[in-house]
C-alpha cells in the first residue's frame, strides 16, 4: 500500500487563518471602557492588544492647577473601589513633605477605613468574578455584604463610594459615634458569610475547571511587568507595601502577607479570598483600640510644599499605588504622577492570555480585577 497523502479540497478548508476581532469598548466583562484587539486563530488567542484612552480625564494635568487639599478628591475618581487608599497616598505624600506628624488616632482610623475599603472592593470583585463566569448568585451575595460597609462609610464619611474622608493632616470629620458598633457588627456578620463564598464558588467544580491552570503568570514575569497586589502575590512576588514599607498603623498590627506560587487564575482568586480574612483580622485588632485624641493635626491655611520631589506608596486593593509630586514651592504641584497598579496589571494581559481560549480571557481579566478609570486617568 502506498502512503496516504492528503490532497484535495478537504485540506484547503481545514487551513485556518489568523484574524482579529474587537472585544469592547462596550463589553460587560471588560469592567469599563476597555478595547482589546484580539488576534485569534479559531478560538485560540495569539495576541492581545489593549487600547485605552476611552475614559481619559487628564487628572494628572488637573492636579497641576489645584491646591493640595483639592487634589485629594480627584483621586477618588481614579480607582473608585479603593478611593480611601488613594486619598491616603496623596495625604501621606503631603504630610511627608511638610513633616506633619499626624495623631495616632488618625493613623488607626485611616487603617480601619482602608481595610474596610479593601473588603468592599474584594466583595465587589468576588461578585463580579462569579458573574463573568456565569453565576449570578455570587453577584447578589457580594453586593449584599458590601452594603453594610457602604452604610458605615455613609454614616462616618458622608458618601458611599467617593468618600473624600482624608485631608492633608488628618481626617475630614471624627468618626461617627456608631462607627465602632457598626464595624464590629459587620465583622461578626462577615465572618459567618465568608465561608459561604467558598462553598458557593471556590469549591464549585465548574468554576474550578475554568480557573485552575488557566492564565499562568510566572514570578519572573510578575516582577518584570510590575504586577503588584494580590495578582502579583499569587505568582509568588512578595510585594505587599503594607509589609515592605509600612505606613499608618500597619507596623503595629499583625497580619500575614498572602503569597501563593501557582500563578494561575485560581491562585489569584484564592489570594483575594484569603486577603479578606487578613483584612478582618486587622480590623479586629484595631477597632477596640482607637486612641483618644485629635482627628486632625494643625495645618496652615494654604499648603505650600517645599521645593523637591516626594514619593509615597500605599497598598490599594489592586496593588502598589504611588504618588510622585514634584514641587517648585508653590501651592500646587509642578508635576504630579500617579503610579496606578491597574496599568501594569493590564499590560501583562498579552503575556498571560496568549495561547488560551477567548472564554478563558474573561476569567483572566476577572482575576486581575481591572478598574478602568484607574488605568486611564
Amino acid at each position, binding site marked *: 500500500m502506498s502512503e496516504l497523502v492528503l490532497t484535495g479540497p478537504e485540506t484547503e478548508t481545514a487551513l485556518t487563518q489568523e484574524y482579529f476581532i474587537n472585544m469592547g469598548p462596550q463589553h460587560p466583562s471588560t469592567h469599563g471602557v476597555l478595547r482589546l484587539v484580539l488576534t485569534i486563530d479559531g478560538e485560540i488567542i495569539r495576541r492581545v492588544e489593549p487600547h485605552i484612552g476611552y475614559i481619559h480625564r487628564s487628572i494628572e494635568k488637573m492636579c497641576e492647577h489645584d491646591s493640595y487639599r*483639592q487634589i485629594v478628591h*480627584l483621586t477618588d*475618581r481614579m480607582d473608585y473601589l479603593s478611593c480611601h487608599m488613594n486619598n491616603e497616598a496623596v495625604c501621606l505624600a503631603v504630610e511627608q513633605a511638610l513633616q506633619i506628624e499626624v495623631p495616632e488616632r488618625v493613623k488607626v482610623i485611616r487603617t480601619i477605613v482602608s481595610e474596610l475599603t479593601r473588603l468592599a472592593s474584594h466583595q465587589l470583585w468576588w461578585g463580579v468574578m462569579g458573574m463573568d463566569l456565569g453565576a449570578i448568585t455570587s453577584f447578589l451575595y457580594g453586593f449584599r455584604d458590601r452594603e453594610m460597609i457602604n452604610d458605615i462609610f*455613609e*454614616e462616618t*464619611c*458622608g*458618601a458611599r463610594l467617593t468618600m473624600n474622608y482624608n485631608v492633608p493632616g488628618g481626617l475630614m470629620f471624627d468618626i461617627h459615634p456608631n462607627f465602632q458598633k457598626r464595624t464590629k457588627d459587620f465583622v461578626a456578620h462577615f465572618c459567618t458569610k465568608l465561608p459561604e463564598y467558598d*462553598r458557593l464558588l471556590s*469549591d464549585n467544580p465548574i468554576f474550578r475547571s475554568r480557573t485552575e491552570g488557566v492564565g499562568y503568570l510566572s514570578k519572573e514575569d510578575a516582577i518584570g511587568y510590575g504586577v503588584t497586589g494580590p495578582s502579583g502575590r499569587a505568582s509568588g512576588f512578595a510585594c505587599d507595601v503594607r509589609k515592605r514599607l509600612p505606613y499608618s498603623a500597619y507596623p503595629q498590627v499583625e497580619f500575614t502577607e498572602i503569597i501563593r506560587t501557582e500563578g494561575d487564575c485560581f491562585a489569584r482568586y484564592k489570594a483575594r479570598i484569603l486577603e479578606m480574612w487578613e483584612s478582618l483580622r486587622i480590623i479586629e485588632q484595631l477597632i477596640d483600640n482607637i486612641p483618644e485624641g485629635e482627628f486632625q493635626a494643625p495645618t496652615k491655611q494654604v499648603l505650600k510644599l517645599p521645593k523637591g520631589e516626594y514619593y509615597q506608596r500605599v497598598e490599594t486593593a489592586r496593588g502598589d499605588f504611588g504618588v510622585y509630586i514634584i514641587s517648585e514651592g508653590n501651592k500646587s504641584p509642578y508635576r504630579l504622577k500617579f503610579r496606578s497598579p491597574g496599568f501594569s496589571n493590564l499590560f501583562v494581559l498579552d503575556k498571560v492570555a496568549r495561547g488560551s481560549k477567548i472564554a478563558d480571557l474573561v476569567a483572566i481579566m476577572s482575576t486581575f480585577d481591572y478598574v478602568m478609570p484607574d488605568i486611564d486617568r
Partner: protein
Amino acid sequence: MFKAIADYFKEIYQTIRGLLVGMGVTGKYIAHARREIITQEYPDNRDTLQMFERFRGEVVLLHNEDNEHRCTGCSACEVACPNGSIEIIWARREDPETGKKKKQLETFVYHLSMCTMCNLCILACPTDAIKMGHNFEHAVFDRSQLTKVLNRPGSRLEKGVEE
C-alpha cells in the same frame, strides 16, 4: 484500567457533591427568604426614607424663619471649590444703620452639574452659612435647571454675623 474507571466515578461524585453544597447555600436563603432582607423599595419608601446625618447630597444655604442667611459674601467657598461649582456675586452696599459701605452677598450661584460633593466648601466657610443637604433626587429635564441661585429672594444677612 480499573483505576481509570474509579477516577471517572470519583470525579462525577465530587462534581455532584460540589454542586449540591453550592445549591445548599442558595437553598438556605430560599428557605429563610424573609430573614435577611437588605433591599429597600425605594420610590415607595420615600416618606420614611432617612438619610444619614453626614450624607452629602447638595450644597444648601441656610435661611432662618425671618428669611435671613449667614453668608457675608467672603468667597472662601468659591476659592476652596476644586471644580468652580460656586460663584459668589457680591457688591459694596451702604449699610442703612451705620451708613458705612459694606461687602454684601448679591447672588449665590451654585452649579450642581459640576459639583462632586467633596465637602471642601463647607469646611472653608467661616460663618457656617452653607451645609450639605440630604436631597439626592437631582434629575431634571434640562441642564440649565442645574444652575441654582441659593439665596432666596429678599433675604438679608443675619444680624451679628461678621466676617
